[in-house]
């Protein structure tokens, strides 16, 4: 008896320790993570729901919403296509430099968002590589939609690939090899064999990619030029309103982005819970 009690004492935390650690954890998450979220909605509704809705219905705000949706609509499918292509090449074949290629694909996650925008200014900006030529032909990339799309594509570049690569590595290549030996074309093999196996993992990657694409601030801020109603995405519009002391407007638009974050988290938790075996085990972000 005495021995058993001692054993439990050394393998489990003292009840007081449990309470203290739990309180610290709840405190950290509550005060540090949830309170800022609550702040967004509280400030948005500070002058009532009508004021918040008016602020979102304002033309510049609506233009920002439209631009954000448009940018995500271009950047996310392209990155998804890239992610599928890269993970197909990396997981279905063995070739020299494969590990290095995988590291390069992850590279954009290590680069500061501001640097991610800067690189495109150095190429397409007025004093950039192609600046003079672009100006001559009246093509605007920086301070216009193409620059915003490029910067967004850079920062969300690895999301789908890094979700699919570990998943497709786990799944191996026997099924694709069987399909190929039975005479299926590459496209048929992908559509009928691979896609059903990876669809939830693909969706998971697209979900995270989209959340980041719609919420990106630093990279887009460098290339946008902050032209109201024209090149301001939602996060940039939030910044402009906030710096203008229009707090209800800023937090009203911010609360739309916060809702997007909440929906993303709910869907993400659902996918992790329902399809745990069909998405990759490694979820480092």
């Amino acid at each position: 008896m005495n021995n058993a009690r001692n054993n439990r004492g050394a393998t489990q935390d003292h009840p007081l320790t449990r309470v203290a650690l739990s309180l610290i954890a709840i405190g950290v998450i509550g005060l540090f993570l949830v309170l800022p979220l609550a702040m967004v909605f509280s400030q948005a509704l500070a002058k009532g729901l009508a004021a918040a809705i008016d602020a979102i219905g304002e033309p510049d705000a609506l233009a920002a919403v439209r631009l954000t949706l448009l940018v995500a609509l271009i950047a996310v499918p392209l990155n998804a296509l890239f992610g599928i292509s890269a993970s197909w090449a990396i997981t279905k074949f063995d070739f020299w430099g494969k590990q290095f290629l995988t590291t390069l694909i992850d590279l954009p996650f290590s680069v500061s968002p501001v640097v991610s925008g800067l690189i495109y200014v150095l190429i397409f900006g007025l004093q950039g590589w192609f600046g003079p030529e672009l100006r001559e032909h009246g093509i605007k990339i920086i301070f216009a939609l193409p620059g915003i799309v490029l910067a967004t594509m850079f920062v969300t570049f690895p999301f789908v690939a890094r979700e699919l690569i570990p998943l497709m590595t786990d799944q191996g290549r026997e099924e694709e090899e069987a399909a190929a030996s039975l005479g299926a074309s590459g496209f048929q093999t992908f559509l009928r064999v691979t896609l059903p196996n990876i669809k939830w993992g693909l969706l998971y990657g697209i979900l995270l990619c989209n959340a980041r694409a719609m919420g990106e601030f630093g990279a887009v801020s460098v290339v946008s030029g902050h032209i109201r109603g024209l090149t301001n995405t939602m996060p940039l519009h939030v910044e402009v309103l906030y710096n203008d002391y229009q707090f209800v407007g800023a937090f009203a638009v911010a609360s739309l982005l916060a809702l997007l974050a909440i929906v993303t988290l709910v869907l993400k938790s659902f996918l992790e819970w329902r399809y745990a075996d069909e998405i990759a085990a490694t979820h480092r972000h």
Partner: protein
Amino acid sequence: MTSAVTSPAARWRNPSVVPGFGLSLGFTLFYLSAIVLIPLAALVIRPWSAGFDGFWHVATDHRVVAALRLSFGASAIAAGLNAVFGLVVAWVLVRYRFPGKALLDALVDLPFALPTAVAGIALSTLYAPQGWLGEPLSHLGIKVAYTPLGVVVALTFIGLPFVVRTLQPVLAELSQEAEEAAATLGATRFQTIWRVVLPALLPSLVTGTTMAFARAVGEYGSVIFIAGNLPAISEIAPLLIIIKLEQFDYAGAATIGVIMLAASFVLLLALNFLQNWAASRR
């Protein structure tokens, strides 16, 4: 004999019956080069237009040094805080059972999901002198918003999930048998934690903390609203890049960009090394 009939491509790759190698690798390399590699190369060659002296002149400028010191220093402090809090949160989420745990677990990802500008204005309003947390703290004589401390707060906010999410799977897999063995051999709970559990967690704790640090160094959106952005005091390096761009000082902006990119490379290499170490210790 076989080598005589295989195509040159087969020398650097093993043959496979699965189709689509050329197309998928070709598109991957094209897209990677166009979006990532060539633009990054444009950054790396830009600062040298005035030679190494020009680079050095910008890199050792008082304001640039102060901004880099703040970015790296505040990130180090934030990563340290995240190591402690992240360990506690991961421990509680893995080892204890209580109602609402699943919700708490999902909320850990909030800093990943919440756009940084939204986090930035929320933290700034929260810690402002009249804010929910700023007012009680100001009575204690602590000023957070518009000081370097505000930078630390924002960087801690965005870094926390990295430590928790790196530790959780390792902690869940950690066999309790080692703890039981320690207990049988007469160790106290504290000795068991200190000498058995923590050493096993160390590789992933260091990995998660390094990830939090790497993310914090380049962070922009969540910081600039709460920082106050006073030159050489609370001005972070990414903001200084933007300021230099607005003054059309492309070479100056690229110089700071290259320094930060070099730091990212070093951290990426360190992380690769750490992850191999963590994997070998599992």
